[in-house]
């Protein structure tokens, strides 16, 4: 993974010193609260319901053991012994004190981490496929691109006061695991059919929130070398033309929607043509310097399938189920990528205690070439495991409550912090997730249902990605009472789709029952090995709506 050079190191240290100075200038009145707010947000400091919240950047979700141990330490020393992994693959602490934050930033800088641009109207933490570098369907590792964008977007002189936040995701695989179509810019590495050169497909204007939109392709094949100049052109058009009169209409998706993708593309291409590419783009040697950090580790030569693994699976059905659910095929024979579920039944989705972080750090160091990933689905990945080590790892994870075999299943729920923490929330998210988990806690039943993504947001801002959940749940507040709107048919993959609303909002206690009815329709109607979302596509919304209506009527 990437390591800081002297320039990166100085940059991050100087940002910490700058933030200390900004806090001091707020305290002595040089800066008003309005002036200070974007400065603290751009360093990840939010004022939440009960306390400050600090959001730490995990660039493209990649961490090493030393970094995760430092996060564990910070959680113990300055918080309540746990942290929360987010859908932007960041880590949030919910209880730090403002006066401690500069010290926390120093501790982060010690392990090449920061909080730069984890909030605010700027380019946010860049995300990527969490199986980058190991996925079998990968054309090129997206992380060097993501790292280049991380550097380029950091304290950008021109693009730090945008109309609204701006999110970029990169994938290098055929199957989109980075939800690039729900990003302001989505980049997909692909091969040009004629030249066989690796290029970017560039999508712009995806996003969730109040007005969910799927990104539209503005360039089919952008030469890799032109990336930064092209991004500069997109950002300049957006910065100048994006709406600033209404924060809910300020994302680039609204600009693309209002002027049309053809006109938006025309303006970008016009600006791009005028830019002097060679003076803007990173030179190939710099791109190669970054890419070298992401060279694959030296794998042992192993048989495709481990006999040790097969034997332990045969002897232990619970272990076999976990392997089947939580591992992903790996490029290297005899290896596997393991997803560790942070969704044990009844816990807050995405939370990890400091003890759990230390255990995962130890496992990463010992078994996974010192590397781990955070997924946008709020789980962790050990990307380079020998299959034969899985049993030992499973046992150790089990002792720490981290061996849930539910990746991709109905209890692997994405949920934002909701009204339990967030100042923007209009309803609770975590308790809803927990109630659904308890209803579907039975392992056999979960496996029978198969892949089903439930995503919950506690307000219209959609941090919980509810629009693109197979089943989406949006918590609203109506006349002082929480009301949950259910959507169906959303998808977060290369077939990204916005879900459709099933009917009137429900009370919190009726949500698990409604989910139960929807699942029952699927189980009754499915053909062969059809997955939930495939059934929804074939059947349409009508049978699900009818079942949902029964719940709505029953409670009305």
């Amino acid at each position, binding site marked *: 993974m990437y390591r800081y*050079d002297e320039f990166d190191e100085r940059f991050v240290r100087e940002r910490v010193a700058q933030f200390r100075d900004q806090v001091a200038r707020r305290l002595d009145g040089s800066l008003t609260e309005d002036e200070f707010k974007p400065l603290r947000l751009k360093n990840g400091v939010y004022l939440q319901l009960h306390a400050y919240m600090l959001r730490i950047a995990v660039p493209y979700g990649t961490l090493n053991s030393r970094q995760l141990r430092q996060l564990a330490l910070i959680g113990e020393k300055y918080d309540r012994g746990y942290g929360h992994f987010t859908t932007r693959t960041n880590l949030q602490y919910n209880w730090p004190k403002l006066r401690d934050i500069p010290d926390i930033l120093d501790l982060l800088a010690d392990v090449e981490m920061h909080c730069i641009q984890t909030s605010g109207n700027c380019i946010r933490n860049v995300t990527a496929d969490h199986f980058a570098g190991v996925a079998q369907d990968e054309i090129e590792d997206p992380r060097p691109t993501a790292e280049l964008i991380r550097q380029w977007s950091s304290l950008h002189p021109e693009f730090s006061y945008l109309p609204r936040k701006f999110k970029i995701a990169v994938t290098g695989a055929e199957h989109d695991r980075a939800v690039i179509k729900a990003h302001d810019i989505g980049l997909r590495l692909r091969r040009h059919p004629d030249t066989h050169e690796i290029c970017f497909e560039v999508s712009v204007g995806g996003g969730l929130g109040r007005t969910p939109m799927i990104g539209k392709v503005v360039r089919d094949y952008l030469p890799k070398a032109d990336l930064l100049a092209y991004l500069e052109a997109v950002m300049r058009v957006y910065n*100048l033309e994006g709406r600033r009169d209404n924060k809910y209409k300020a994302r680039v998706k609204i600009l693309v929607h209002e002027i049309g993708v053809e006109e938006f593309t025309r303006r970008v291409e016009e600006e791009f043509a005028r830019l002097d590419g060679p003076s803007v783009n990173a030179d190939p040697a710099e791109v190669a310097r970054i890419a070298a950090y992401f060279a694959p580790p030296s794998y042992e030569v192993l048989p495709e399938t481990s006999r040790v693994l097969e034997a332990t699976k045969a002897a232990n059905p619970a272990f076999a189920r976990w392997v089947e659910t939580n591992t992903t095929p790996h490029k290297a024979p005899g290896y596997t990528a393991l997803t560790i579920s942070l969704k044990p039944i009844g816990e807050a989705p995405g939370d990890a205690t400091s003890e759990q972080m230390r255990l995962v750090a130890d496992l990463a160091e010992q078994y996974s070439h010192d590397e781990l990933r955070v997924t946008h689905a709020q789980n962790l990945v050990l990307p380079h495991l020998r299959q034969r080590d899985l049993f030992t790892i499973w046992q150790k994870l089990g002792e720490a409550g981290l061996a849930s075999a539910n990746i991709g299943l109905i209890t692997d729920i994405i949920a934002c912090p909701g009204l339990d923490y967030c100042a923007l929330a209009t309803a609770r998210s975590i308790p809803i997730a927990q109630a659904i988990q308890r209803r579907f806690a039975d392992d056999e039943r979960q496996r029978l249902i198969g892949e089903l993504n439930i995503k919950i947001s506690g307000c219209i801002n959609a941090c919980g990605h509810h629009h693109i959940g197979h089943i989406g749940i949006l918590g609203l507040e109506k006349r002082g009472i929480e009301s949950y709107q259910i959507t169906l048919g959303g998808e977060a993959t290369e077939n990204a789709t916005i879900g459709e609303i099933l009917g009137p909002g429900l009370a919190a206690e009726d949500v698990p029952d409604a989910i139960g009815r929807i699942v029952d329709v699927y189980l009754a109607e499915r053909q062969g090995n059809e997955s939930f979302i495939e059934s929804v596509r074939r059947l349409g919304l009508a049978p699900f709506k009818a079942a949902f209506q029964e719940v709505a009527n029953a409670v009305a």
Partner: protein
Amino acid sequence: MLLLDKSGAKADVWTRSEGAAIDNISHALVAWEALPEALQQKSRDQRLGVIVPNNVSIAELKLVLRQLSLVAVSFPSFSDGRGFSLAKLIRNHGFTGTLRASGPLIADQFAYAISCGFDEIELPDASAGRQPVEQWLKAVAQISHGYQRGYGDNRNILDQRRAARAAGGAV
């Protein structure tokens, strides 16, 4: 009003005109709407500057850039970043005169403004009263080098790495 550049506070040689009435003002600063008329009145040895809103059409502005010695870009609020992109466009269209950011910016934006092509900042008294010149001069130097190429000099990190590679250094 406080006017400052990278060296500190400076005197303002520019005088705002009433509409297009630039008379014999040596350095006349006119509003964008009054510019066509002021250009017609301008004498050979008179210098003309214009105050433009941050949503001005670059297609129109670029036609008159060569006749201007100063362009002042209005920042209606510090959080409205259009002026940074406008400055970049103005420079990319070859303007070599003075570029001024005019409005309630904050010291933390000084370095950004300079990188985007501004030479100086004109601050309203309310901002200048809270943020004295020393804070601006301190803030502008807080981050030694940025990553972006094409924003100011070649002291950016990517060009420094490139120079080190060319020199056979171990970066």
